[in-house]
């Protein structure tokens, strides 16, 4: 990356948001408090929404905020409250063999870094990207990708019914 590029506001924004996201993600997997993990996950998901806006995907970013931060996080907090006797820090959130995860994640990251750098080295994203509006996305969804959309509708229906059946007290 060239020094002139670093001055571009987009790159500075990317770096700041990426740093916040990485710190938040690390706290999600290392904190000893389930509620704190959920709140750090909110930080990561908000950062992801900001990255989507940097990637010129406003509609996906808004959907991310609505669905993830609005709905999924409420589900997580409800799940935490309904399954936890106490709210504070806990000792036994990790497996006995949790150290195994560090080399696995390290090797995986090394492999992906080599693949990404060798494939896309210093390729620039287009400066003037083609604007993709909501209309084009909806044309895709009800056009060539209608079959996955139907499948997704059935997945959601099955998930709703399954969740009701599973969680119902009988």
């Amino acid at each position, binding site marked *: 990356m060239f020094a002139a590029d670093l001055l*571009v506001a987009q*790159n500075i924004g*990317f770096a700041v948001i990426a740093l916040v996201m*990485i710190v938040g*993600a*690390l706290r*999600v*997997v290392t904190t000893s408090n389930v509620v704190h*993990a959920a709140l750090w*996950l909110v930080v*990561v*998901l908000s950062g*992801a929404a900001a*990255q*989507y806006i940097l*990637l010129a*995907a406003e*509609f*996906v970013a808004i*959907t991310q905020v609505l*669905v*993830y931060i609005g*709905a*999924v996080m409420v*589900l*997580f907090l*409800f*799940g935490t409250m309904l*399954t936890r006797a106490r709210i504070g820090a806990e000792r*036994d*959130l*990790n*497996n*006995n063999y949790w*150290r195994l*995860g560090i080399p*696995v*994640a390290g090797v995986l*990251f090394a492999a*992906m*870094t080599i693949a*990404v750098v060798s494939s*896309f080295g*210093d*390729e*620039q*994203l287009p400066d003037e*990207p083609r604007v*993709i509006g909501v209309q084009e*996305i909806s044309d895709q969804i009800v056009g060539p*990708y209608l079959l996955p*959309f139907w499948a997704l509708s059935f*997945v*959601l229906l099955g*998930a*709703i019914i399954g*969740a*009701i059946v*599973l*969680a119902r007290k009988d």
Partner: protein
Amino acid sequence: MLTSQFLLLGAILFCIGVYGVIARKNAVLVLMSIELILNSVNINLLAFALRNGSADGHTFALYIIAVAAAEVGVGLAMVLLIYRNRRSIGLDELSEMRG
């Protein structure tokens, strides 16, 4: 902006999520780590959508968000059911299926 900076951010988040799935015992925390993984995939999809100037990445990012919502709903319902029966959601205590 480089293409690889977004892909590397996705790779970092993916690896952190994989670490969380391996290391965590609490089922809710494992579900959160899966959310990290799904978000890293979304970042990759949107980076490629910007690179290729196509709307396919946006479409599938939306599909992934919907599938993730369904997955969390069913997953937390299962966690609630397990908690109701076992008074614990430690994944290492669920050993009935061991042969």
